[in-house]
């Protein structure tokens, strides 16, 4: 303890922190101004008291200069008032510049992805494929009411700073952490422990993107097992590995391309229907909502949905879809109902 105190004392004396320097200098300058003013002015103005001298020093150092007290003697003017004015200007300028540089540094750290994220329930977007993809994802998420008041944190090791169009976005706010998303240190910086979802994207130019995404999924699930991870993969065979890595949602976008193209040949317009159903920006959307109610037949659920402007098209049970089930299909408490409607439905 004694050693620690001595060491601290030694360090403070040898290189005092900036804030301590400013504080100590302000105190001694105020003390010098107040005592000097009283020393020189009291003989000619016996009414002066300590509190008035301290007040005078404050008013002069802060460059406010009310003028309610002013030095009349030569000593008071040239030995006290003038040095006090110069110190005041310097000190005030220094304090303001310190505050400004601290603000700029904090902002710059944030933009360059070096700041620690202290958010909760945020969405991590791992990997930055391109600005257009990120902007479209943000737009889609922002259009859904359930994403309100949540922030997005982009984690990438190649992006140098957060692109200008993503600065200052409100609802959702976008933050950036620079680093490898599979690295523990980076994930800690992005506050993965308190994140609700993680979206792991593929980079089209990266041939190893699937392998990278498996590693990122494993790292995230290892840090926070309650997080909901949705991973994009290019090769459909990666799905199995991602499942084993406890990935909650796997989207193989190349598979969609093939399906959309062949469907469009067979049923012209089908791809635009699917596009509208999956976009939050226009028309009706597909919603998957937890039933959470008593066991009942699908026809009852469908009628209930119809009364609320939704069309029930199926049931999702244990990760499997039952589309257009028979009317007597029993919906269980743990099932999810797949509906099409204008806005999110809550049972």
């Amino acid at each position, binding site marked *: 303890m004694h050693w620690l105190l001595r060491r601290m004392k030694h360090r403070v004396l*040898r290189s005092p922190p900036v804030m301590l320097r400013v504080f100590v200098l302000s105190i*001694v300058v105020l*003390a*010098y101004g107040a*005592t*000097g003013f009283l*020393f020189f002015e*009291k*003989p000619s103005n016996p009414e002066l008291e300590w509190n008035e001298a301290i007040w005078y020093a404050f008013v002069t150092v802060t460059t406010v200069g009310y003028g309610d007290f002013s030095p009349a003697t030569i000593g008071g003017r040239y030995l006290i008032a003038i040095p006090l004015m110069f110190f005041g200007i310097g000190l005030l300028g220094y304090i303001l510049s310190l505050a400004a540089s601290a603000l700029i540094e904090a902002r710059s750290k944030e933009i360059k992805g070096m700041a620690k994220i202290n958010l909760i329930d945020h969405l991590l977007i791992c990997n930055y494929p391109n600005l257009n993809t990120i902007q479209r994802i943000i737009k889609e998420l922002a259009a859904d009411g359930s994403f309100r008041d949540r922030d997005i944190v982009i984690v990438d090791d190649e992006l140098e700073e957060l692109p200008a169009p993503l600065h200052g976005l409100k609802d959702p706010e976008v933050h950036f952490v620079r680093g490898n998303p599979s690295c523990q240190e980076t994930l800690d910086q992005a506050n993965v422990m308190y994140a609700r979802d993680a979206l792991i994207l593929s980079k089209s130019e990266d041939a190893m993107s699937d392998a990278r995404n498996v590693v990122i999924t494993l790292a995230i699930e290892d840090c926070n097992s309650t997080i909901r991870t949705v991973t994009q993969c290019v090769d459909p065979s990666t799905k199995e590995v991602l499942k084993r890595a406890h990935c909650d949602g796997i989207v193989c976008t190349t598979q969609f391309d093939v399906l959309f193209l062949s469907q469009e040949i067979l049923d012209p317009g089908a791809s635009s229907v699917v596009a509208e159903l999956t976009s939050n920006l226009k028309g009706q959307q597909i919603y998957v909502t937890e039933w959470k109610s008593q066991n009942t037949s699908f026809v009852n659920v469908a009628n209930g949905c119809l009364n609320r402007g939704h069309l029930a098209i199926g049931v999702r049970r244990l990760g499997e879809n039952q589309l257009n089930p028979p009317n007597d299909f029993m919906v269980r408490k743990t099932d999810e109902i797949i509906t099409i409607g204008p806005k999110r439905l809550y049972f």
Partner: protein
Amino acid sequence: MDIGTKVFWGIVVVLLAASIAFGTGVELRRQPNTTQQAG
């Protein structure tokens, strides 16, 4: 200790010494008056 730190502590010591000297001067001047009034 770098030159900046030396200058900083120098200014602090000088200003502190001046403050103590001024403060002592003010109090010393005040004391004879209070003694006379009391007498």
